[in-house]
């Protein structure tokens, strides 16, 4: 049953990704990207990552879609009608994919409880959360306590990205230079 749910959700993800690739309409692509995020959130629940699924649903399907739509109102709705399928990109993608699939041959089987990733810190963190920290949500315990330094860094990254966006877009449009003048300093000199 779990296998069936997995395969169906992965199939939907594949179809959505192809549709994103196909469409010329950026509004459609944005909406499909939102649907893609929501479907992957469902898949994450099936893979036991409830915290991650929660975040993906709120971020990917919510905030991300809103920001994309905001960008579309400020830019354009349609992609330019397009040249032929490039052989170069296709080759690059196929070679990369083939190498990655070759790499999975040596990987432990999906769901293997004896995989190396399950051996070292994970059992310690689970036991430590139960015995020392004593809160039920192991993910929160690792996030805030065991890997607190990581999380501090991530928070700083978010803050920095926010500063970057404000520097780029913070001023209102009217206060900016006229659109279409890409080198105002040179035109002043001339």
């Amino acid at each position, binding site marked *: 049953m779990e296998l069936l749910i997995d395969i169906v959700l992965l199939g939907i993800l594949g179809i959505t990704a192809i549709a994103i690739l196909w469409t010329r309409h950026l509004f459609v692509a944005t909406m499909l990207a939102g649907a893609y995020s929501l479907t992957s959130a469902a898949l994450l629940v099936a*893979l036991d990552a409830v915290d*991650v699924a929660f*975040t993906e649903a709120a971020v990917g399907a919510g905030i991300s879609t809103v920001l*994309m739509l905001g960008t579309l109102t400020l830019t354009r709705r349609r992609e330019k009608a397009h040249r032929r399928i490039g052989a170069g990109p296709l080759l690059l993608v*196929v070679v990369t994919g083939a190498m990655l699939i070759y790499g999975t041959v040596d990987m432990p089987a*999906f769901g293997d409880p004896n995989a190396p990733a399950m051996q070292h810190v994970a059992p310690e963190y689970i036991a430590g959360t139960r015995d020392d920290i004593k809160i*039920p949500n192991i993910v929160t315990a690792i996030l805030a306590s065991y*890997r607190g330094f990581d999380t501090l860094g991530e928070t700083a990254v978010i803050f920095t990205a926010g500063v970057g966006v404000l520097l780029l877009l913070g001023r209102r449009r009217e206060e900016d230079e006229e659109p279409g003048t890409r080198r105002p300093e040179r035109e002043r000199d001339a």
Partner: protein
Amino acid sequence: MLELFLAKYNYWIVIVLMMVGLYVVVARGNLVKKIIGLNVFQTSVFLLYISLGKVAGGTAPILTGKDEVFSNPVPHVLILTAIVVGIATTALGLALVVRIREAYESIEDDEIDEAENRDMAADLAGPSR
């Protein structure tokens, strides 16, 4: 063969999703489309990490007092923060797209290239105005 498929299918389909995302980033000229492709790529990396942490018969890593098998919580923590950092960087990328559009009146990379080439040619020809 079926056994190999059952052992690896999750990784393989995720890799296919990754390839679609990479193709959009490399082959499409539209900057917004490139960022959407980057998001597809990113989500498939998230799925790969979470797949690595899945334990067959395991459950979500929340202690209930019963003795249960948990999926590995460490990738969950990595990816949870990566998602929020991902949206922050996506916002930064989109902000750059907006500014590029304001400067060049275009979000297609070939048109931006052309405009740059025209600029360069004008620079080489000397100050005309």
